């Protein structure tokens, strides 16, 4: 296996925990090719970084505002008037 072939198969190696066990040629290449091993580590770290602590939160004032709009739409759809709801 060449570096090019490993590059093309990188998704499989990254996404499957067992890829390295099943495809011995990947593991063999990686143990002999430091650049490919580092690239693989870098990609795993890249994904981890993006997944970790990257939450976005909408402003609370907006949350209140849009949920009211949705509720009006909801009432319209399910044929409820405000009066009906309040009674």
């Amino acid at each position, binding site marked *: 296996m060449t570096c090019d072939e490993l590059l093309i198969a990188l998704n*499989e190696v990254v996404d499957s925990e067992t890829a390295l066990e099943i495809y011995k040629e990947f593991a063999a290449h990686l143990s002999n090719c430091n650049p490919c091993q580092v690239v693989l580590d870098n990609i795993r770290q890249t994904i981890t970084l993006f997944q970790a*602590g990257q939450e976005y939160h909408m402003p609370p004032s907006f949350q209140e505002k849009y949920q009211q709009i949705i509720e009006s739409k909801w009432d319209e759809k399910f044929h409820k008037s405000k009066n009906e709801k309040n009674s």
Partner: protein
Amino acid sequence: MIVVAEEYSLNNSRKNELESLIKQKISVDDEDLPLWQEAKDGNFKAFQELMNRFQNRVYGLAFRILNNPQDAEDIVQQTFLTLVEQIDRYRGESKVKTWILGIATNHALKLLRKRKGQYYTSFNDRNLDSINHEPLPHPEYIAVWRDNPENLATQKELKILLSESLNRLEEAYRTVFILRDIEGLSTEETANILDISLSNVKIRLLRARLQLREDLTKKLGIEATRLISTHSEHPISK
């Protein structure tokens, strides 16, 4: 010969088998399904619970695609309005989560197209197959990263670094990376949402990962550990 990713697929039949198994399990494993069922019958409280569960996810998804807080807010509102309109149309063919994130993604992409004007449309319509057949970019800057990823910088600096890198990606790659690696959707779910082929999802994801790796390693790699790739002097064709 030029090596392209599509020519290299591992164990496809096993994958398809797994994918159909996963499909059968969707209804069993979908913890949001009961809420949707109640909502469909007109229970607003159930729908509100769905909104509370997903609003920040939709917001984050839209923020990453559009890179603008106001636009992200618009997408949240549009997404849940669409969900109210189409609540009876959902047939459980995907997880509720995928249904919601799919509607949000498509609203966000539509707005992005509007923001970018025709330029963008022509990019997306450009035959992406031709991109798929372009050689993959080789890793150039290869180095071990400083410390653990989480300790690399302050959270704020890190957030800026990541969002800048993400925004440097072409939209076609960025959206796939967001759905697959950040939102954790499967290749098939991502393909359905974007209406592209499975192999297109895979190649876009690979290109996104490679470019982000290159970008982040330039910022986070230890120069002293930098390696010269054995293939860096040769083009990928052989």
